[in-house]
């Protein structure tokens, strides 16, 4: 675990546990945050490797080394691990670390709950991966092949072990994120420094508050969906099987009732930190603070009532299709309010372009492309050309990677001096940004192109006419993967104490309570 290498806080108070014990018994919000971030960053690399394995297979037509079943399993695991074991816990780690500092509290409200939430994660990941490895010993048929959405319930029923383990893992991940959500809500609502009103707290707190409520609303629905699926598999019920009066489409409704808000759960923490970083490096206050807060709530609300646009090719009645189309279009308004405010924040500022700023600007562009490519999709008139093609895959990686991951990288670079007391290597940081930005866009724009041309997603092999784009995607994906090693190296070097000592407030334009304590903050 990378976080295990983080140096002991220099001015830890006497009696503060050290070594391994520190990480096991700690209730310090910063340590818990680091645990979350370290573990999920490791999962980022694991899940990324899975993607590179199947991208290598997809580099040329023909099945080279991955059979269809293994390919499907890798795609499924990549999706599940990235969403549940990387992005969500990483954002939880950030909130554990940052929110108390931002609201002037020495701790989070429910650190033990939060810590339990963390220790569920390695367990969940193990449960998720066990069937994949068991198949090499002749046990079972591997991990789930049904993609992370599991929405082909007939296919789920055919799986021997994989789907069961996935369901258990989803429960563990779900409980973990609900614990995290409790912690955020109680912390933000009760532990703010007396002078800080809700309307003066940092946007990151607002964003996470919205995310936490979304989690509490939609994760139980996912739990219902996969729980009933489990019952169908083992207890002879027919919730999603037509023979006993069930409907496989019902599973899709339940899943996407969770699945669409999940997109906002993933991106909102990053959206909420962007204005802070943009404002710091523009040396100018955040533009449209209230407009952004209202947009978060609007997005959370609208995002919860539009799930059906994932199902427009499933043969829903016309009225449903029309409703989901027009309802989904409405999300473009609050989303563009956010982009408008971000640009408003840098407009007429005095910008400098340190690495966090580069990543934040990259995240704006990523969200712009993600949003604009996404607003086409719910269009019921053309949906049949987008549904389940690589266009969808390319599109959703923009908000997920382009906005959420780039935004989190901006956050890491921005707060790394605060967390470690050292400055990271600026030129390595910039190098990381430029290679990431270019290779990321090449990868996923090409995916959209080949998807528009008709290539379906989830396929282990493809027709000759899709070969050119796929070669580009694979090469760019490997460059993208390699660029993250620069990031890893840079962060580890910083943690190990290379680099200049960081001031308490290393950024000229930074504002907020989190810059008051020393770097790193005392335990």
């Amino acid at each position, binding site marked *: 675990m990378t976080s295990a290498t983080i140096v002991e806080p220099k001015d830890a108070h006497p009696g503060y546990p050290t070594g391994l014990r520190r990480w096991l018994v700690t209730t310090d919000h910063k340590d818990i945050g680091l645990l979350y971030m370290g573990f999920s960053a490791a999962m980022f690399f694991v899940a990324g490797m899975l993607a590179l394995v199947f991208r290598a297979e997809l580099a040329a*037509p*023909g*099945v080279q080394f991955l*059979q*269809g*079943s293994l390919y499907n399993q890798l795609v499924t695991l990549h999706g599940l691990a990235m969403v549940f074991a990387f992005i969500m816990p990483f954002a939880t780690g950030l909130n554990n670390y940052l929110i108390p500092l931002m609201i002037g509290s020495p701790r989070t409200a429910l650190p033990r709950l939060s810590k339990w939430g963390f220790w569920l994660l390695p367990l969940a990941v193990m449960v998720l991966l066990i069937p994949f490895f068991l198949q090499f010993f002749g*046990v079972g048929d591997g991990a789930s092949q049904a993609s992370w959405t599991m929405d082909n319930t*007939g*296919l789920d*029923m*055919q799986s*021997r072990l994989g789907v069961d383990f996935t369901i258990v893992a989803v429960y563990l991940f779900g409980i973990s994120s609900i614990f995290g959500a409790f912690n955020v809500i109680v912390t933000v609502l009760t532990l703010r420094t007396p002078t800080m009103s809700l309307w003066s707290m940092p946007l990151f707190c607002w964003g996470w508050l919205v995310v936490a409520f979304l989690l509490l609303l939609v994760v139980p629905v996912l739990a219902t969906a996969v729980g009933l699926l489990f019952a169908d598999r083992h207890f002879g019920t027919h919730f999603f*099987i*037509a023979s006993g009066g069930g409907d*496989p489409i019902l599973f899709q409704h339940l899943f996407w009732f969770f699945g669409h808000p999940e997109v906002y759960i993933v991106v909102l923490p990053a959206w909420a930190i962007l204005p802070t970083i943009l404002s710091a490096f*523009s040396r100018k*206050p*955040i*533009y449209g603070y209230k407009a952004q807060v209202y947009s978060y709530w609007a997005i959370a609300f609208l995002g919860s009532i539009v799930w059906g646009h994932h199902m427009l*090719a*499933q*043969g829903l009645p*016309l009225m449903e299709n029309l409703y989901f*189309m027009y309802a989904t279009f409405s999300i473009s308004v609050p989303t*563009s309010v956010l982009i408008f405010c971000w*640009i408003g924040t*840098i407009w*007429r*500022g005095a*910008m400098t372009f340190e690495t966090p700023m580069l990543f934040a*600007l990259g995240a*704006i562009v990523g969200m712009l*492309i993600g949003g*604009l490519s996404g*607003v086409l999709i719910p269009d*019921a*008139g*053309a949906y*049949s*050309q987008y*549904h*389940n093609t690589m266009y969808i895959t390319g599109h959703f990686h923009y908000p997920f990677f382009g906005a959420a991951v780039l935004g989190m990288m901006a956050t890491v670079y921005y707060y790394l001096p605060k967390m470690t007391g050292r400055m990271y290597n600026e030129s390595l940081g910039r190098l990381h940004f*430029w*290679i990431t930005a*270019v*290779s990321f866009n090449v990868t996923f724009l090409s995916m959209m192109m080949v998807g*528009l*041309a*008709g290539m*379906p997603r*989830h*396929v282990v*092999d493809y*027709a*000759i*006419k899709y070969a*050119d*784009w796929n070669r*580009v995607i694979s090469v760019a994906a490997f*460059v993208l993967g390699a660029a993250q090693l620069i990031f890893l190296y840079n962060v580890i070097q910083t943690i190990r104490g290379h680099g200049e000592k960081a001031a308490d407030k290393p950024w000229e334009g930074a504002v907020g309570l989190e810059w008051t304590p020393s770097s790193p903050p005392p335990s």
Partner: protein
Amino acid sequence: MLIESEILKMLRKSCLSFLLLACLGGSAYADWAFNFQPAVAPLADDALRIHNRFMVLVIALFVSTMAVMAYSLFYHRKDKGFKPAIFTGPTTPTLWVLSALPFIGLVFVDYVWVGVPAYYAAVTMENTQEGADLVLRVTASQWKWQYEYPAQGIKFVSSLSTPLTQIYQGAAKGDNYLLEVDNPLVLPVNKKIRILLLSSDVMHAWSVPAFGVKRAAVPGFLRETWVKIEKEGTYRGQCAQICGTNHAFMPIVVEAVSVERFAAWVAKKKAEQEALTTSAEKVWTKDELLQHGQGIYEKICISCHLPGGVGIPGVFPALADSKIVNSPYQDASGRLIKDGHLDRVLNGKQGTAMQAFKNTLSDVDIAAVVTYERNSFGNKTGDVLQPVLVRKLR
């Protein structure tokens, strides 16, 4: 420090040029498509038209937003000595109006510019309840399509015909690699064809991009869509819902022909079906069955049960030494033994990847492959299963 930054610069340059090379260099196939396949049916016309309408504005929005950003990034910099402003929102009524404009524009694009034509397209797409000239039943199963023309009395199965050597052993690939089938669907042009979709196992999706058609086949539920092909030609699509191991190998090929040629094809297909019936009635020799059965095995069964019938322990059962294969398939009074060898091949096993091949294979095919399996891989039942019996038991 200086050297380090030089190295970094070089590294950056080489990475970027590597990417550039990957994009432009050595284009063996030169198919840089960036829009839908040419539309040959009303639904595809609608989709393309709306997509283009939308895309133009989306690109315009992107470019204008990026232009504003670029302007800001270029001029509002500390190193140009720009003094930061302090505003946190629109300050004058004019600015309020100006900043509302993009959103009014967006609402217009969503609900009028695209929303209105999309409404009509969606309504058209669902218009299956009148004016059909021909009904086609499509039954999806892992991993093939069964097509049935009830009015014409034609029924056949269409599955991938790309040789396994091209897929798995790197043999030179044909032009229609993975997009070719043994029995293409033949449809007349300028006729409204109503397509009824069923599934016999898991969810699939029938999709032909040139028709603008993509619709799920949901187990236990009837789905339908329609197409009116405007131009003769061959159109290709694929299953569009992940449906298991061979999801990538479930293509759809449609040959659109004139009404006259369609009538001729119907006559020919019916004659073929009758010939199949006749050939099933003749008594086949063991060698003929073994030879034919080996072909079927190597085309279909081999992908799971593997060469030599060894299977994958715990996943796909072995046929060599299998209890089922070496037990009888019919009882003393000539009835099919439930869960026996022939029953498995004909009807599949619920909840597994073993499909019901009675929908896919002819009497002769099934008789041959069962005979082959019962006399190969070390199995020595000596049975010869005649196609006539398969017909009786299917």
